């Protein structure tokens, strides 16, 4: 299968390169046949990459250790269900994964592209295929997953134990797909610019693909946090690790983009701004890939010392310089259709929201490049740690939550002060009441009080709007409240899908604030039979059992948990040592409720049977993990295709919907 995989990669490279050149040449030479042929080559490249993927998966299942990549990332003891993880566990496989994803989404994006973009599609195809050509060239020349060993080893080195976690089935592929997915909206924007279509033609396609990338990145980041929380053994979920930030930054810029693109769609405004945003998002995505593959920042996530760093740095430089050159070239044509009517409008709120998101992204970027710059200019590496990010980004994030609360309550174009007062007063009262109640209950931390108050404002604003809309439908149609509510959401999917996502952000904020300000931590060594009090809990350590496995030694510790003298449950937590990796992996025992988590993880198993434990009580963190599915639901609702109804259809005719108009006689 190694040969078929290698052949497929070369075929895919040839097709992608041909598609790049053919698309541009066909467009410039006005040869529709060449353009069509180049587009077909793009589809064929996707097929070739699927064959390559199939070949590598088959090699893993057959444990074909003749292939260096299979020998390095699997062994005979590895269960087959981990093949999916092993596939992208290393540099070469992850490049193949990224290339395959890019080829597939490129094919779907071009196939489903709106008709109005027809003139720009050759350029869009060229941008997508140029990116694919880069990845395929790097893979075939420098990091081929089908390279063979000169001998066939009896067993492989095995999979990294930290990757054998459920979160790893989705976290890395979601992040990689999200990062490379940004290429699609970027390609639509750049293709439209190159074709001289400087209006709003690319907006619909750009919005849909940007939201998909955004959702993949959000899901990937959340699953990564969950993975870190349950397996890394330090009890936290976010460390401001440079590679975490690498995925976080494009997500922030995409968040800004999917808000401001709505302004362009609705009002024809922010045309230049949206091009800049999608260019910045792509630049940050390429920066993230550079950091992952040979960037000089050490991280738990990176693929180690890889020689690809310089190649990706060059690609990053091109990926930043060329799009901005195109932007500057087309700048005179990028005029917005309208000016901002008022600073008291939804558009203005979106603009401020964009600026805050960009500020957080650039603070984070500064934190990742500062160690490099300090080493370069001061001969001394000064790393930037969590306090920097917390102190600078914390207030900016509070500002964002504030805007999330008031933005949706402000109408488009302009708001009168009286209507604004009417809309904002009830949520503001709820927010202040929340702060008052929490303060009187003894919560006196400023940041936490503000965050909880603002979260209450956002939630109240959304619930109040749903209540009013539902009541209006109920009164007008006689529908019961549940049906009226569902119809309300269904009739305004992009808007209310966004609101559901806002609710999930509030849930995230609750989890982050709860654990950041109110967590209790205890590091302690317990012998069998010992007990310890943490928060409201009493934890009794019953003992630890050692089990020898084929590739690891596993220590399973059993603990009983009591609260107020009442038995709650028995928890088990494991710590495994993998000699071939000289690495320990832990699985935390977690008793999770919406109020708080009791988190127990063993840090060391001593010879006398005692165990060093880290025990934490993390308030409200449960809401973080619930936020993921809620965010997913919101995204699906927002993206669900919507038929737009005409304002004045003839009663005798079916309703007008785009595309349903009778054709010319």
């Amino acid at each position, binding site marked *: 299968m190694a040969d078929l995989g290698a052949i497929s990669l070369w*075929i895919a490279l040839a097709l992608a390169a041909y598609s790049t050149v053919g698309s541009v040449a066909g467009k410039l030479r006005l040869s529709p046949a060449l353009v069509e042929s180049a587009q077909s080559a793009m589809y064929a490249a996707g097929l070739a990459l699927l064959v390559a993927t199939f070949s590598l998966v088959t090699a893993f299942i057959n444990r074909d250790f003749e292939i260096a990549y299979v020998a390095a990332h699997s062994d005979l003891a590895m269960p087959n269900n981990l093949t999916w993880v092993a596939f992208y566990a290393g540099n070469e496989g992850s490049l193949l994964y990224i290339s395959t994803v890019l080829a597939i989404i490129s094919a779907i994006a071009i196939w489903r592209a709106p008709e109005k973009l027809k003139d720009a599609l050759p350029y869009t195809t060229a941008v997508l295929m140029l990116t694919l050509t880069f990845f395929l060239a790097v893979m075939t020349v420098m990091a081929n997953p089908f390279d063979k060993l000169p001998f066939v080893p009896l067993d492989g080195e095995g999979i990294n134990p930290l990757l054998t976690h459920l979160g790893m089935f989705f976290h890395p592929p979601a992040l990689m797909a999200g990062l490379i997915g940004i290429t699609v909206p970027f390609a639509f924007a750049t293709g439209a610019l190159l074709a001289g279509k400087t209006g709003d033609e690319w907006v619909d396609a750009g919005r849909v693909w940007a939201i998909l990338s955004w959702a993949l990145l959000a899901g990937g980041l959340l699953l990564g946090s969950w993975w870190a929380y349950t397996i890394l053994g330090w009890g936290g979920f976010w460390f401001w690790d440079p590679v975490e930030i690498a995925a976080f930054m494009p997500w922030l810029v995409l968040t800004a983009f999917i808000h401001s693109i709505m302004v362009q769609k609705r009002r024809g405004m922010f045309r230049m701004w949206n091009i800049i945003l999608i260019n910045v998002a792509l630049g940050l995505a390429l920066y993230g890939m550079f950091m992952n593959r040979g960037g000089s920042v050490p991280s738990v996530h990176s693929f180690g010392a890889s020689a690809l760093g310089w190649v990706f740095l060059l690609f990053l430089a091109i990926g930043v310089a060329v799009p901005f050159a195109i932007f500057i070239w087309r700048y005179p044509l990028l005029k917005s259709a309208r000016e901002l009517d008022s600073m008291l409008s939804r558009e203005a709120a979106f603009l401020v929201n964009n600026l805050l998101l960009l500020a957080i992204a650039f603070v984070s970027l500064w934190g990742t490049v500062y160690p490099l710059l300090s080493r370069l200019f001061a001969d001394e590496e000064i790393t930037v740690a969590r306090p920097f990010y917390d102190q600078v980004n914390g207030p900016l994030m509070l500002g964002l939550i504030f805007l999330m609360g008031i933005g949706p309550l402000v109408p488009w174009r302009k708001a009168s002060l009286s209507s604004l007062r009417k809309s904002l007063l009830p949520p503001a009262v709820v927010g202040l009441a929340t702060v008052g109640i929490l303060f009187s209950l003894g919560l006196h931390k400023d940041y936490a009080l503000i965050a909880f108050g603002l979260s209450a404002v956002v939630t109240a604003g959304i619930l109040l709007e749903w209540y009013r*809309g539902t009541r209006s439908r109920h009164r007008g149609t006689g529908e019961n409240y549940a049906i009226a509510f569902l119809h309300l959401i269904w009739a305004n999917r992009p808007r209310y899908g966004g609101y559901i996502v806002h609710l999930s952000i509030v849930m995230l904020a609750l989890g982050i604030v709860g654990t950041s300000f109110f967590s209790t931590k205890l590091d302690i060594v317990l012998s069998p039979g010992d007990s310890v009090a943490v928060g409201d809990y009493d934890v009794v350590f019953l003992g630890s059992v050692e089990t020898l496995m084929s590739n690891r030694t596993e220590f399973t510790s059993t603990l009983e948990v009591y609260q107020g003298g009442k038995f709650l449950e028995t928890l088990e937590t494991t710590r495994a040592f993998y000699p071939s990796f000289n690495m320990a992996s832990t699985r935390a025992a977690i008793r999770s409720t919406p109020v708080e988590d009791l988190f127990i993880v063993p840090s060391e198993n001593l010879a006398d049977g005692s165990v060093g434990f880290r025990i934490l009580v993390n308030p409200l963190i449960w809401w973080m993990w619930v936020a993921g599915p809620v965010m997913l639901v919101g995204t699906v609702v927002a993206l669900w295709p919507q038929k737009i109804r005409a*304002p004045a259809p003839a009663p005798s005719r079916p309703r007008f919907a785009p595309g349903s108009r009778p054709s010319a006689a």
Partner: protein
Amino acid sequence: MDAETVISIFFGAVLAVFSFAVVGYAFVRGRQPESESSAGAPKTEDQALADIFDAINTLDLEFQLGRLAEEDFKTQFQAYRVQAATVLRDQLEEGRGDPAWVLEQEILLARGDQESADGQAVTCPDCSAAVLEGTPACPHCGAEMGSQS
């Protein structure tokens, strides 16, 4: 050369030939008549209409939720109707689509404009959208407004 290598090379060759055929097909088949570009334009117009109608839906929702004064609502509602009517008229002038249907839509829009000048907003019995009094059918769901007032 073992059997697996031979099979791999065989399937690799099949893939290469197939790819070559897919890429070359565009050159050997006869060109389709250039009707695609003329079919593309109406879809673009449809999207323009869809965006306007979407904006009307949102405007309407914000009015229902009490975020817009009635006067602002009427002004903006009328402006969107004019935009939609302009798109429809452009279609008619360019001779695309079914002229009778386009004209009918335009008349309905124009009637809506006239009525909105002094009409009051009422609620649609079917979808509960705000509709200007006197409009024969709900602009959003198409339901007849009947005796609603």
